């Protein structure tokens, strides 16, 4: 079974600074996807960034980038130039593409989340 662990329940960062959120996962699969989702107080889950496990290059999306270490099963999120609007819960999640595996069909497995506060 796949598990996702986020070891930082809460973090804070000053506006314009850089912060890194940690995530580790455990899977026996070789082909899978990893995601970071953001959930602001409005409750809407928003995709921040996505990484395909077979790609060695770290995904980037504007101020957001990941450090994907497949051998270590680590998938951290770096937020550069933090903005007040980045204040939210951040969830790391994994899934795997549909295949002849049986069992779950691409559902997301979430970590417990990290509450990030950006301070002015």
């Amino acid at each position, binding site marked *: 079974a796949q598990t996702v662990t986020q070891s930082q329940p809460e973090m804070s960062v000053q506006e314009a600074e850089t912060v890194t959120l940690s995530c580790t996962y455990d899977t026996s699969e070789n082909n899978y*996807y990893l*995601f970071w*989702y953001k959930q602001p107080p*409005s*409750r*809407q*889950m*928003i*995709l921040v960034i*996505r990484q395909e496990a077979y790609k060695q290059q770290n995904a980037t999306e504007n101020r957001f980038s990941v450090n994907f270490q497949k051998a270590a099963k680590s998938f951290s999120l770096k937020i550069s130039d933090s903005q007040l609007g980045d204040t939210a819960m951040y*969830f790391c999640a994994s*899934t*795997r*593409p*549909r295949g002849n595996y049986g*069992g*779950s*069909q*691409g*559902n*997301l*497995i*979430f*970590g*417990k*989340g990290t509450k990030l506060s950006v301070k002015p």
Partner: protein
Amino acid sequence: GAGVSQSPSNKVTEKGKDVELRCDPISGHTALYWYRQSLGQGLEFLIYFQGNSAPDKSGLPSDRFSAERTGGSVSTLTIQRTQQEDSAVYLCASSPRTGGEQFFGPGTRLTVL
């Protein structure tokens, strides 16, 4: 285009009553997922629909929970004889394909008194 919508936004019910939660996925998305978000358990997968295939119900916590998806589009999650531990936010997500990016709705906050 329109995103995933869910209704109602909030639902308060009495213990023992049945509730129905609705999800309208993004048009054309073949995969639809239900998740439950609660303080104690975090985000849990409940059920998954893909096209006309039989749904994956492996995440449903008890037989009081059921879901259907009519015409490959709208889905309804039904909780019978609600219990206080059913109080949570129920999130629906859709995806153009299994394993791809999932787009979430705003959720339904269920409170069982």
